[in-house]
């Protein structure tokens, strides 16, 4: 089953959201992020809150006062360690 048709697990969704932010020069507004992440608005809100709560992303305001989302150091570290995390979880059937 390819990535587009199977259900993504939680860690994968988080990875995808963080990757989208990183690929947008580490700054993206919530609406395009919602669109690119392929999530429902409810799911997106939950993930967004979770990522903010875990300190993987943070909100910043531009000169016009518009909200942008950006990765924290922890967010970058998550992207860097993602393969390890997935490998570990698969190896130990967690």
């Amino acid at each position, binding site marked *: 089953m390819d990535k587009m048709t199977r259900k993504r697990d939680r*860690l994968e969704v*988080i990875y995808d959201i963080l990757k989208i932010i990183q690929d947008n020069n580490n700054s993206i507004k919530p609406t395009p992020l919602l669109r690119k992440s392929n999530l429902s608005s409810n799911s997106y809100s939950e993930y967004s809150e979770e990522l903010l709560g*875990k300190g*993987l992303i943070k909100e910043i305001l531009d000169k016009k006062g518009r909200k942008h989302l950006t990765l924290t150091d*922890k967010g970058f*570290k*998550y992207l860097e*360690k993602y393969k*390890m*995390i997935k*490998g*570990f*979880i698969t*190896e*130990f*059937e*967690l």
Partner: protein
Amino acid sequence: MPLHNFFDPMRFGTELAYTLIILIFCFVIYFRTKVLYDLTKHKGIKYFRYAFLFFGLAYLTRFILHLRLISTISADIPMRLIHLPVLVLTGYFSTMAIFSLVYTNIWKRINAKHFILFSNIVAVLLSIAAFLTRSHMILISLQLVLMICAVILSFAKKTKKLSNVRTLYVLILIFWLFNLFTIGHRRLLPFEVKVIFQLISIIVFLIIHHKVSKWTK
């Protein structure tokens, strides 16, 4: 006064070395997986870490219990005083370790809050049973029942095949019960047989440590 006046040096040395090796493996596994848990807050990783933390503590308290067995008469009085509280702690830590290890496999199917509460209640009840009977045999019997239930629960999955990692988990549980059993029955098993079992047990922990190291470089 030299230590050999209190303990049989051969048995003491073997037990100390065995406990230290297991303890180091358990704590290294616990601390090496901290980054993965901090980044993800993944429940499976959380309980995997807890399992090894509790096993480390259980092996440590088991060693203290074992000291009484190998102590000479002059050391028996202080050992008798600490026997009961240490037995209670061993009961609690080891039961929590068993539950945590099983939970790593089944957390997706079971409500976490209930499971944590349930495992703590069972761990406390087993500790109370050990306290009231003043014997580790009740712990072995109850943990054996617990282990059988846990293994059945763990393997009641769509894949009934015993994977490598699940085999290791089962071996950890079996070796724990074996080690607990040897506390009170040293005459039933020759010293050499016990050492062989302990060596195999170290190999199991070594394999898990190696697998963990592979993903936490």
